[in-house]
């Protein structure tokens, strides 16, 4: 690299001059600060960093980052980011989205960005509610959700975002939550460093329209017994003293058990690099919602060539085969004839 050293930056350098306008107490603030704390540690340049968002509360994120950024159209950020990432492999492209933006109106673009493995870091803030439109249920809201648009309770089964991403052939899938800055930073760091599309579900509290949605699992007193940290190569166990664990019943089902009952040797060992996504998928189904012990951390991290580099390889191969494009020769590539 002939590049001069990346300048040393602090959190302040990554904050724009715009006043942050989320509701006081919104979980988005801690996510923003986690990202702004992480970026100085990544050894990347502000000018090479781009945040692209769609529409929704989360989508205001780019305005607060002193980088390049685009606040685009509801649901379309992954598509727009795909065009940018494929033409500019030198950039770090982040997509910030919400549960409505990425799983409802933009569901199609999310799954295709993941299957193509476009070099994008996708942070999906999941608050299980529509905040910006003032409180309708979202595609991750629990069945029976009472909102303005569902006064008698919502009827539709929610998405499990981690399951969905795994089903979409994602190569990196993780989950974190807005009350644990350190965990967020480490998860985002892994996502950023992943050479391909990475998808992070961030449980995020909307204190105005869906306050306490994750309290049962990430409340201070509940956290130890309800959050299951996933560590690659380590037995899956949790609890203040590691007293709980996860085992497989040999039928493809996972169960939460007491380590004392089954013994340490029986615990499932996490393997985020397994080519087959079955284990990651089973882990994503361990909890049916944020009221049961829920895994957090990296579910899956496997390597597959990213889309942009495959595209570039084809361009290179074509040039090697046919020579650099010659416009004049192209115009004359069919049958031609001349008159004097």
């Amino acid at each position: 690299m002939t590049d001069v050293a990346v300048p040393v930056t602090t959190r302040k350098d990554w904050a724009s001059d715009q006043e942050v306008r989320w509701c006081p107490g919104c979980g988005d603030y801690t996510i923003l600060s986690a990202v702004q704390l992480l970026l100085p540690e990544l050894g990347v340049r502000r000018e090479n960093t781009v945040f692209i968002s769609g529409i929704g509360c989360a989508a205001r994120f780019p305005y607060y980052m002193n980088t390049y950024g685009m606040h685009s159209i509801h649901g379309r950020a992954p598509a727009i980011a795909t065009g940018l990432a494929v033409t500019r492999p030198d950039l770090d492209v982040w997509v910030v989205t919400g549960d409505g933006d990425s799983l409802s109106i933009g569901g199609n673009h999310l799954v295709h960005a993941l299957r193509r493995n476009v070099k994008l870091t996708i942070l999906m803030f999941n608050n299980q509610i529509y905040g910006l439109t003032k409180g309708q249920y979202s595609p991750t809201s629990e069945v029976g959700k009472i909102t303005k648009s569902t006064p008698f309770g919502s009827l539709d089964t929610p998405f499990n975002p981690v399951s969905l991403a795994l089903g979409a052939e994602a190569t990196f899938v993780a989950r974190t939550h807005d009350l644990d800055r350190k965990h967020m930073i480490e998860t985002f760091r892994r996502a950023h460093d992943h050479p391909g599309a990475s998808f992070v579900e961030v449980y995020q509290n909307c204190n105005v329209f869906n306050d306490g949605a994750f309290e049962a699992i990430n409340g201070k007193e509940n956290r130890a017994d309800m959050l299951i940290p996933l560590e690659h190569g380590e037995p899956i166990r949790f609890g203040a003293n590691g007293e709980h664990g996860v085992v497989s019943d040999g039928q493809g089902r996972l169960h939460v058990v007491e380590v004392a009952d089954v013994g340490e040797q029986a615990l499932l060992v996490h393997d985020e690099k397994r080519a087959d996504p079955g284990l990651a998928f089973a882990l994503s189904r361990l909890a049916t919602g944020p009221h049961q012990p829920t895994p957090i951390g990296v579910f899956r991290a496997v390597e597959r060539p990213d889309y942009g580099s495959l595209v570039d390889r084809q361009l290179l191969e074509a040039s090697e085969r046919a020579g650099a494009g010659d416009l004049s020769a192209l115009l004359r590539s069919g049958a031609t004839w001349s008159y004097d």
Partner: protein
Amino acid sequence: MTTDSKTVSEPGRVETIDQVVIRFAGDSGDGMQIAGDRFTDESALIGNDLSTFPNYPAEIRAPAGTLAGVSAFQIHISDHEILTPGDAPNVLVAMNPAALKANVSDLPNGGILVINSDSFDERDLAKAGYETNPLEDGSLSAYRVYEIPMTSLTIEACKPTGAKPRDAERSKNFFALGLLSWLYHRPIGETEKWIARRYGRVPIVVEANTLAFRAGYNFGETAEIFESSYEIAPAEHIPGTYTNVTGNVALAWGLLAAAHLAKLPLFLGSYPITPASDILHELSKHKNFGVRTLQAEDEIAGIGAALGAAFGGALGVTTTSGPGLDLKAETVGLAVSLELPLLIVDIQRGGPSTGLPTKTEQSDLLHAMFGRHGEAPVPIVAAKTPSHCFDAAIEAARIALRYRTPVYLLSDGYLANGSEPWRLPAVESLPDISVEFASEPNATGADGEPAFWPYVRDPATLARPWAVPGTPGLEHRIGGLEKHDGTGAVAYEPGNHETMVHLRAAKITGIANDLAPVEADDPTGDARVLMLGWGSTYAAITAGVKRVRKAGRSVAQLHLVHLNPFPPNLGKVLRSYETVIVPENNLGHLTRLVRSDFLVDARVMSKVQGTPFRVGEIEDAIHEEIDRLEKESQQPDAAGGPNGAVAGHNGKEAEL
């Protein structure tokens, strides 16, 4: 067909004719498009002027032998300049009863009918809906009918290959091509080479097609069933090197050229849709030009990715047609707000909804003009002939880059698939359309430090700077929310919004300053009627105007390439004619625009049948209007009215 000599003659006789229109028609699996394409290339090599019109069904393989499955290819060749594929064929090649039934009514009395008689069995007759065999019931007596058992002759010819009859039969399009190649003295060497190239991977197919092709040619020569064969001399041409192109290929090449001239990488985000897909196919072949093509998950992603690429400094393009255009509208609005260059190529087809996917129409102009929420002006450029698609693509890109705006480039199904000889431009003669990226701060921040404001405008063009990610010191955020004039920060102030709405509008209106004034083609200078057009009607209007002038009458013509904004002096030109007639394949899109912009009493001549205007229709409409004006001049007080409507193609009065 006009002939210079007597029509009755002895075998072996060669007649010289000045032009002919041939239509190949068969089942969509019969390879008629290939036969037509090859005949076109053979004719181009002779130096005839030519124009083609492929017409095929939306179904890939409609039930064989039915009317729904008929595919046709019409080619007009001549020894003089021509513009259209011809109003009606002089020669119809019908490979089966359905092809005959669907096309014979277009053949004028005395026309040549070449029929594959093998296909006129009971089953095929029934499928086409014939109760009696037209070869036997006298219904074709008005034509010069040549019944030739093409299927069995092809199978016989292919025997040496060992191919099964069922497979050998598939070469019968080459038999028909060989026969017509003999009849019109086309050179056959190039087609034989082409067969070898195209089917080279399957030697038995190369052999079968070549044998069938030669058998057709030799059959014409030896069977002595044709009274004569025909020669058509080369047309006079402006010196230069020519090739034959379809509109879609010319458009794809125009995009490659535009990127080259702009010194930018080309990115195409597209979702397959008829009849636009060939642009995606063509560009995907030329990766050695550095073009990145993304077959997106949907139309929205296609344009979204193109816009993302534009943000990163590429020439971003999306291509679409029909319903795809509707889906792109929201992103076009974002591009208007972001003020980034973007090309939206729309190959218009019959609508609404799925409409007529393979048939031409010009009914998207008002969508391009107005089809977005909010005040969202977008420039529009329209191609007028297949080869002009090349120039139109460069012009659309020039406007997009210079003014940092999305631009609609309109073509249509007729231009997309039709072809014409094209005098190739020298690449060095093409315009430089490159623009500069911003590289320096352009303002002073509140802290007194140099700052970059993304919405500071160039006073001449009102374009904002294009600062691409990767440029240190110019980091900025843009979005769909209203922006502060200058800083680009989110701004909801009422006065600022009004300023921004006006600035965005003025920027687009101001493009007219960049456009050359238009001049009507009015050789005698005394025409009272102006034929105003846009897009693919150019050929028919120009040919119709020529015929009227040949008859000694004056008529003026003006064809627009820039539809938003209009050329600066357009209103003045329109107002200088007593009548402005606008032939359009819609119900009056351009008509509405010029009426509302210039308060001129322009009148639409409408045709929406999925096919282009016939020259005769245009010619008749001009005569009718001149007659009306002359009558009115003789009787100044007589009725006739200021709104004397123009007769449409169907004789009904067409009004807005």
